[in-house]
């Protein structure tokens, strides 16, 4: 009992419970949901698909977790995904024989570099000019689509260079390759934020920027850094997205991803009010979002209604985050021991 109590206090506990509830639902109502087969040495099945499909959102969520921890937001990541996809596609080129125009690693490096620059632009607007994060990143959210279109000459570029397909479609040791990318990024981010004081500084800036400045922390550089990092994550996500469909579509690549990623971060326990952040929570959050989507489609719910269901989940989560609402509910049930 005591173990359960201390477990339930860990932030990661409730997102995992939510995921487990969704899974249980599927266990009973979706036939063969958990069946995993081995074909050609790879694992196949719904669960594997969920993890694979969630990868681009997970990658975005890692960057957004740090941004949101500073009480900021980055709604331009979906557009940066499109830019990154566009750049890498143009540099590899649509040669039907699959001969890349430039070496694939260079193309990928260039796409990520451009994405980091885009993130730095956001960081500059927020930290140096003092623009509100939602407005600052809205600019690139809108302009970024245009940039992506210009990059691909307003056409959908198809790729035939086989090795590039590894990122989004390939397998390694039986598991989708993209899972390893996610794991590597999260591990690296966790190391950098938790083995140095960076994580503490990010949280301090998110909780109380004035006090952080007074304590000798350079809040501006921290802010600049997290937006640049969010750009980096979006760039990597863009590579995976492009590789999955072997094409770059400036209009639709990563469309609406920023909202799914924000939802994942929030579901994972990082508050939009800034402060404490939970990288693993964000990953679980992304899995919840993806499982929800898969479940809805598995049930044959039409796509237009699927969005409504997801919206309902967002609503419930937001309400649960609001102290006023929780107090109201607690009052309704006559609970007096409700703690602040």
């Amino acid at each position: 009992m005591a173990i359960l109590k201390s477990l339930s206090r860990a932030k990661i506990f409730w997102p995992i419970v939510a995921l487990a509830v969704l899974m249980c639902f599927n266990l009973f109502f979706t036939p063969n949901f958990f069946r995993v087969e081995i074909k050609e040495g790879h694992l196949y099945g719904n669960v594997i698909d969920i993890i694979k499909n969630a990868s681009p959102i997970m990658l975005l969520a890692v960057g957004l977790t740090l941004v949101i921890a500073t009480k900021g937001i980055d709604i331009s990541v979906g557009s940066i995904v499109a830019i990154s996809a566009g750049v890498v596609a143009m540099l590899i080129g649509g040669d039907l024989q699959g001969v890349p125009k430039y070496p694939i690693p260079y193309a990928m490096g260039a796409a990520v570099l451009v994405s980091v620059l885009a993130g730095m632009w956001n960081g500059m607007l927020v930290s140096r000019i003092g623009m509100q994060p939602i407005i600052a990143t809205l600019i690139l959210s809108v302009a970024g689509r245009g940039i992506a279109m210009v990059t691909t000459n307003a056409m959908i570029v198809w790729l035939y260079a086989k090795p590039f397909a590894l990122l989004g479609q390939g397998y390694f040791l039986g598991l989708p390759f993209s899972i390893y990318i996610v794991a590597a990024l999260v591990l690296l981010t966790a190391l950098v934020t938790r083995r140095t004081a960076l994580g503490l500084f990010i949280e301090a800036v998110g909780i109380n920027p004035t006090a952080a400045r007074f304590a000798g922390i350079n809040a501006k550089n921290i802010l600049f850094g997290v937006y640049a990092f969010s750009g980096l994550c979006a760039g990597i996500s863009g590579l995976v997205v492009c590789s999955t469909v072997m094409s770059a579509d400036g209009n639709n690549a990563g469309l609406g991803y920023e909202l799914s990623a924000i939802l994942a971060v929030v579901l994972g326990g990082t508050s939009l009010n800034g402060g404490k952040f939970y990288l693993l929570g964000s990953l679980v959050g992304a899995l919840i979002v993806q499982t929800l989507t898969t479940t809805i489609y598995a049930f044959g719910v039409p796509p237009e209604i699927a969005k409504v269901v997801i919206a309902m989940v967002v609503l419930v989560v937001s309400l649960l985050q609001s102290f006023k609402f929780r107090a109201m509910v607690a009052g309704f049930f006559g609970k007096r021991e409700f703690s602040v």
Partner: protein
Amino acid sequence: MSGMTPIVEMKKINKFFPGVKALSGVDFRLFEGEVHALMGQNGAGKSTLVKVMTGVYKQDAGEMLLEGRPMRPDTPLAAQKLGINTVYQEVNLCLNLSVAENIFIGKEPKKLGRIDWKLMNQRAAEVLKRLNISVDVTRILSSYSVAVQQMVAIARVLDTSAKVLILDEPTSSLDETEVAQLFKVIRKLRDEGMAILFITHFLDQTYQISDRITILKNGEFIGEYETGKLPKLELIAKMLGKELSEFAYTTNPDERKKAAAEAASDSGTVLSAKALGLQGSIAPFDLSLMEGDVLGLAGLLGSGRTEMARLLFGIDYADQGEIFVKGKRVAISSPKSAMMAGLGFCSEDRKNEGIFAELSIRENIILALQAKKGVFRYLAAKKQLEIADEMIRALGIKTPNSRNEARQLSGGNQQKVLLARWLTTEPIILILDEPTRGIDVGAKLEIMELILNLSRKGLGVIFISSEFEEVLRCSTRIAVLRDKVKIAELAGENMTESGIMRTIAGGK
């Protein structure tokens, strides 16, 4: 005046907030054609009284009369309809609209359902003319100075049938000539019969402009006086709630003298400032601090104590003067650079500028040290625990363990956490702005004890407090400030409450 009926009379007003008695039995009278100053320290109840009068709050007991008839404004709008208008400290104007639009916003003259611009501009010009201001009313407000903006805020409330005008700290962001301009307008309105309630913390201005003064202290009515018959010294004494005869040497003069002698013998100057100043914040001042010295900053609210501290710690950037630490000139351009030079600063605003409520006590304590070491030289968890536990023990912070969130601590313990944060950086100079505010008596004594102990170990301390008693008890020397100017430095025999008050009042 006693023969006349006051325009506004408030009788035995009580107002409670949960756990606080904000006003108890306060009387207040405001007559036609007078400028009435409402005086009191922070928390005296000035703004609560004004808010009751203007319908923001409702009194719990007592009655209010308007020209002899009972009045009960339920909202600020209702008060405005009764002719009671307020111009707040933070001017609520739209800088991107024209002067005329600002004056008539929400009550624009209309013709056939559309705004009659011609009439509006004409009437705006007339209202401003009444205040002896001639500006182009069609230009946007941001193109004029703060003083003009202040006048526009006044003009806005004058348009209606105003009987009472309440000015809440109207001069805090004005320079001298602008103040003079504003006072001219106030006198003109007074001569036209308007009753003006003036709230300020500038003593000199109170004497320049007001006819009568009402003093509050801790929510209680102290008295109503004619300005001409109330000497400045007596005003200060009443605001602080002391009788003049009570002033004597406070605690421990021996200890203080001994400390001063020790400080003098060591005579290592750790901090000095030469002609340091910032336009609009604090006039240039000189300052020097020895090793083991406790320099008290004394002055009334708004006298420039905090501004001085902010300049020294690089929160505000001085536009003139120099700072020396241990004889070496240092460029202090940010809190970080001040910290690197060996300074520490505990802000008076614990909640907004000090504590990270959701971080643990341990993290709160090690944060400044970590910032000093840099992001990559992360203190190991074990080391963090060691430092935090040692500080918790040394300062007597009452908490079961250092993992708890800082917000769970009481005010006094939060203050100790802040103190601990700076002590771990091993500063040579520590600036403490109101470290005893809002904490209970026992904790106050503990904090002061800590300060004395630190100074004995050679730390140079600058100590700011609104309580002269505390400044006297802790300090080896005292710098006195008034109206954003450092006016004197007291040492030895002169260090008494009456000495400080006389200095503030202007006599030596």
